[in-house]
């Protein structure tokens, strides 16, 4: 249906104009429609193809999760927190760093899916789901860290307000309790937000599958038939959620930043930490989306039709903007605090740049500022997927270094020089951190073969609203307002 909308006005186009239109079609997914059934088939095929290599990865990652995450964590529970490298005065180390990192990654989905949806950025359509999945799995990987880092994890439920005989409640003044509520809210709402746009695609998959798949999709499609009323309600629900989840997203990373900002630690007490962390999270999240899109495009069938250079281009621009915003906040947090003249704070900030772990600080600045600024202004770079893959990976290395600077490196050099200390992560900490990375990839791999990674109906809807129209002698793309 979308394919036959070609309102060419006037007489037969010249060969020159024909090629121009062809170029536009190759460039933009939205202008390159495909018969609906064919596209559904492509997505189904991408989802059901499991190569031997895929199985090898799944099994390998499953084992890695069992050994690196479950094994190391179990060992730590049985022996004590001492197997981690933390010590006085650095009581928080890699665990909290990785926790903040994953919560940051989880901002990708909401940003791409909700904010770009609200602003009607059309290029978002083919990868909203890929980003939403990152939110859910990033949260899954991050949310276990508040448990991992507990000295006595077996009584973790004391942080939850539950009725008990002694009327003991958690301390609502503690940011850790706020964290618990913020992350739970975000996990629930982002899961619902992932599920809502999935319903029509589940119905699509249900109609094209047999066996156990058919059974699962039938359950998840909630009896979707595609009537006008159903579409109306779905759009309404998605629209409400898209608006509602944006403040939730902002609140989550603000509250994570308050774990530090409310503390009486020089270098943590900062009123700018909330927005600073949010910008950092979005920078890291959007970069991770590009990383994942590159992997999906080069490993999954038919993905090069959906994920095109234009998407890398558009996301590259976003990353550049957020890198600049991050630098702005960094400047405010750092230089202005410096001018404040507080001796302890000055000491902390000086040691970030000159202390024994200064390389972490320089890694942060090189990866978060120098690399995006030097490369992403260039359209050719933005349109080269493998280059974007490397750049976005480096941005996330930089963001990890940022959290590392803020947490252990700041804690190590507080007000009393007698109590200064350097922290070295141990193999257990590194292994648990890698274990959650494996968990994230493992969940993503499994999900990529169970749910359609491309929101087919959104792409089709977009293609129906996009047309090439001839105005004068040139053809220009035009968009019809849908919602």
């Amino acid at each position, binding site marked *: 249906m979308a394919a036959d909308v070609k309102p060419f006005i006037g007489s037969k186009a010249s060969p020159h104009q024909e090629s121009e239109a062809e170029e536009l079609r190759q460039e933009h997914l939205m202008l390159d429609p495909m018969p609906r059934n064919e596209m559904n088939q492509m997505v189904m095929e991408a989802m059901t193809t499991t190569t031997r290599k895929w199985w090898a990865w799944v099994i390998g990652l499953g084992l890695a999760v069992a050994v690196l995450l479950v094994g190391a964590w179990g060992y730590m529970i049985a022996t004590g927190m*001492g197997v981690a490298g933390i010590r006085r005065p650095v009581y928080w180390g890699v665990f909290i760093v990785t926790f903040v990192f994953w919560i940051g990654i989880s901002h990708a989905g909401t940003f791409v899916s909700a904010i770009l949806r609200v602003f009607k950025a059309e290029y978002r359509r083919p990868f909203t789901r890929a980003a939403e999945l990152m939110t859910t799995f990033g949260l899954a990987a991050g949310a276990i860290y508040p448990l991992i880092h507990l000295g006595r994890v077996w009584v973790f439920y004391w942080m939850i307000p539950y009725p008990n005989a002694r009327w003991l409640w958690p301390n609502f003044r503690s940011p850790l309790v706020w964290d618990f509520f913020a992350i739970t809210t975000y996990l629930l709402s982002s899961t619902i937000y992932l599920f809502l746009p999935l319903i029509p695609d589940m119905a699509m998959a249900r109609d094209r599958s047999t066996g156990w798949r058919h059974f699962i999709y039938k359950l998840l499609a909630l009896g979707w038939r595609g009537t006008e009323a159903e579409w109306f309600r779905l759009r309404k629900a998605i629209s409400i959620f898209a608006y509602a989840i944006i403040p939730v997203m902002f609140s989550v990373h603000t509250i994570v930043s308050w774990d530090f900002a409310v503390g009486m630690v020089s270098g943590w007490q900062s009123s700018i930490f909330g927005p600073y962390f949010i910008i950092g999270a979005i920078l890291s999240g959007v970069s991770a989306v590009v990383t994942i899109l590159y992997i999906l495009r080069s490993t999954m069938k038919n993905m090069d039709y959906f994920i095109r250079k234009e998407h890398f281009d558009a996301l590259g621009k976003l990353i550049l903007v957020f890198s600049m915003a991050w630098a702005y906040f960094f400047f405010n947090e750092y230089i202005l605090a410096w001018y404040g003249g507080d001796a302890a704070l000055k000491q902390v900030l000086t040691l970030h740049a000159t202390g024994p772990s200064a390389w972490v600080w320089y890694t942060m600045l090189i990866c978060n500022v120098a690399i995006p600024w030097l490369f992403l202004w260039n359209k050719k770079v933005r349109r080269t997927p493998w280059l974007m893959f490397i750049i976005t990976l480096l941005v996330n290395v930089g963001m990890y270094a940022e959290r590392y600077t803020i947490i252990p490196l700041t804690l190590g050099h507080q007000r009393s020089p007698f109590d200064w200390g350097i922290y070295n992560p141990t193999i257990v900490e590194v292994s648990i951190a890698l274990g959650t990375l494996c968990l994230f990839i493992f969940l993503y791999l499994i999900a990529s073969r169970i749910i359609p990674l491309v929101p087919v109906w959104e792409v089709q809807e977009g293609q129906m609203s996009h047309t090439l129209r001839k105005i004068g002698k040139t053809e220009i793309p035009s968009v019809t307002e849908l919602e």
Partner: protein
Amino acid sequence: MTELLAKTAQDEKWGMVIDLDICSGCQACVTACSMENNIPFVGEDEMAYGRGMQWMRIRRYWEGEYPEVTPNHQPMLCQQCGSAPCEPVCPVFATLHSEVEKINLQVYNRCIGTRYCANNCPYHARTFNWFDYEIPAPMNSYFNPDVTVRRRGVMEKCTFCVQRIVKGRQQASADGREMEDGDVTPACAQACPTDAITFGNLTDPESRVSKMVRSDRAYKELENLGTEPRVTYLKGGKSYGG
């Protein structure tokens, strides 16, 4: 008798004064504290890595340029802050203020080990049980029956020997009198060979601590943070010795 107990309880606000001018840094207080409070020994390596379990530590600073250096000793312990930064951040109320002694308590059984309180303590006065530390026989016979033995994964810190405060209060009420200055002496003060540590009730203006707090030499550690420490240090400099 219960009336007397209730009355004493209202007038309690314990404080400590440490005279740095006569402290010789001999670590007797550290040892006494470990014995009194069942503090485990973590071994040389862990100690060097910064995991010593001492509730009271001697901070040593060097004054002057090498080779003309003088050591400065500062016994550092929980300052029992009136407005304690460790308290609001604990998610489970494991660290809180006692209404009677007005000191900062740590409830070991409630602690889940987030270690947030230790990060937030500007004095680094808290120690964490990184492992279950074994205390081999016959060393286990030194255990003080009045103090809990802690397990791995919980935070701990100086309690101003709260068990001795309770004992002193009970003794006074058994004798049918009010508590007097000198009824309670924590282990560190008892062991100090130069009598550099004085302990007492700050609500009594005539107690020794109250008088010493008013000294010209008195200062409180990192007072500018607004933590209202209950430990006062005396430091006068050269003419006072030290």
